[in-house]
C-alpha cells in the first residue's frame, strides 16, 4: 500500500526552483509528496533517503529498516545513561515514533540521521530520566519547496565520515571519556577538558548550511 518513490524517474533538477519562495506560507501536507521533495535522493547519503520516504510517503518498509538499525542502539544508549531495560525499551519506541512524526524537520545538510536520532534520544533522556524540560533553540527548517542542495547533503555526510575516522583515531582513554560524556556521566567541569575535538571542518560545513537556510527563509 505504500508506494516507493523511484528516484530514477524523479530527476527534475533542483535548480529550477523559483528564487523567492514564500515557504512559511505553505504548509506541508503529511504523506503527500510535494514538488521537489523526492527528487534529490542519493544512496551514498546513508539513511537520508529512508527518512525522506517516511516523510513523503509514510513508507513503513523504510521505517522498519531504520528501526532495526537504530532502536537497539537507542535502547543501549539509554541503558548506559542510567535507565533500566524496561524504561529504555519504552523510550526507544517513543524516540522512533518521534522520528516518524518529525521526519519533515530533519535537515540532511546539517546532520546525519545518526546525529539526528542521537538528539531525539538525548532529549528523551532529559525529559524522562531527569524529569526536566529540554529547552531547544528556535526551529529552523527548510520549507517544502526549499530543500537543501544535494551537494550540501553529500558534503555533510562526507564530513561526518571524516569526523568518525578522526574520533576513531583518538587514544582509547580519550574515546572512553567522550562516550562517558555523551552517556551523561561527566560533569560540566570534566567535559571542559574534552573539548579539543577535531570539529573545525564539520562546523564550517554546518555554518554554511545555516547561511543557505537563512537565505532561503528570508
Amino acid at each position, binding site marked *: 500500500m505504500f508506494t516507493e518513490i523511484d528516484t530514477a524517474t524523479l530527476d527534475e533538477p533542483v535548480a529550477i526552483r523559483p528564487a523567492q519562495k514564500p515557504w512559511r506560507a505553505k504548509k506541508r501536507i503529511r504523506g503527500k509528496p510535494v514538488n521537489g521533495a523526492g527528487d534529490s535522493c542519493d544512496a551514498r547519503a546513508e539513511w537520508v533517503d529512508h527518512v525522506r520516504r517516511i516523510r513523503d510517503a509514510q513508507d*513503513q518498509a523504510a*521505517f*522498519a529498516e531504520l*528501526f*532495526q538499525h537504530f532502536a*537497539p*542502539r*537507542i*535502547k*543501549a*544508549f539509554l*541503558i*548506559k545513561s542510567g535507565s533500566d*531495560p524496561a524504561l*529504555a*525499551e519504552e523510550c*526507544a*519506541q517513543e524516540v522512533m*515514533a518521534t522520528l516518524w*512524526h518529525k521526519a519533515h524537520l530533519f535537515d540532511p545538510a546539517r*546532520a546525519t540521521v*545518526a*546525529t539526528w*536520532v*542521537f*538528539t531525539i*534520544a*538525548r*532529549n528523551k*533522556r*532529559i525529559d524522562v530520566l531527569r524529569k*526536566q524540560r*529540554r*529547552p531547544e*533553540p*528556535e*526551529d529552523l527548517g527548510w520549507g517544502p519547496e526549499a530543500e537543501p542542495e544535494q551537494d550540501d547533503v553529500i558534503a555533510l555526510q562526507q564530513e*561526518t565520515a571524516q*569526523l*568518525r575516522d578522526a*574520533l*576513531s583515531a583518538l587514544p582509547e582513554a580519550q574515546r572512553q571519556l*567522550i*562516550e562517558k560524556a*555523551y*552517556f*551523561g556521566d*561527566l560533569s*560540566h567541569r570534566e*567535559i*571542559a577538558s574534552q*573539548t579539543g*575535538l577535531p*570539529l573545525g571542518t*564539520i*562546523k*564550517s560545513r*554546518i555554518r554554511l548550511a*545555516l547561511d543557505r537556510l*537563512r537565505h532561503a527563509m528570508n
Partner: protein
Amino acid sequence: MSNKIKHHLTDDLLMAYAAGSLPEAFDLMVATHLSLCDDCRARAESFDAVGGHVLEEQGDVVAMNEKSLAETMALIAKGAPIAKPKRAQCSVLPTPLQDYVGGDVNDIRWRPIGMGVKQAILPTSGDAMARLLFIPAGTAVPDHSHKGMELTMVLQGAFSDEVDHFARGDVEIADQDLHHTPTADITEDCICLAVTDAPLKFNKLMPRLFQPFLRI
C-alpha cells in the same frame, strides 16, 4: 539574525549542552543564545555529530523486544503529540524564552529589586537558577561577585562593565574571580537573561542583607 555578536558561548558549555549534562537553567541560556547566533549553533551541532558517532559506534547494542516494531507502529498510529502553538516572532525574546515566560516581553512578571532594577525568576528545575533582569537605561547593578558561574546575555539594550561592552546576543561569562558593576547604556533600558549555579555575593552590606529576600 545579527552577525555582530562578539561574546560567544564556550566549547565546554556547547559540548555539555550537546551531551545533555547541563542543568535546565543553563540549557535555557544555550538554547536562547543559539536562537540568535548561528556560529554557536554550528558549533553546538558539530558536538551533536560527536553524539551521533557515539550512538552509532557504541560497542554493544541491546535487542528490542519481540513485538517492539508493531508496538511502535501502534504508537505512531495514535498520531503525533500536539505541537506547541507556533509563537509569533518577538524582537526581544527568542522562542525558547517565550516558552518560559509564557508569552511576549509584555507578559514578563517583573518584581522590583531596588534602584529601578527588576527581575523575573523563570521556573527551572535543578541546581541552577534562571532569571530575567530589567536594568533602566544608565543604571548600574550593585557591585557583586559570584560563588559559582554566572552567564548573562543581553536581549535588549546593552551594558558595560569592567570587562567590556555587551549588546544583544552577547554573553558575559563570570566566575568567582570577577567583581563587576554592570551599567546599562543610557540609550535604552536593558533586558538580560542571567543564569547562575550559585547565589551571587554582593560586596556592600545593604544588598547582602536583602539577598535572602530577593533570592539572588
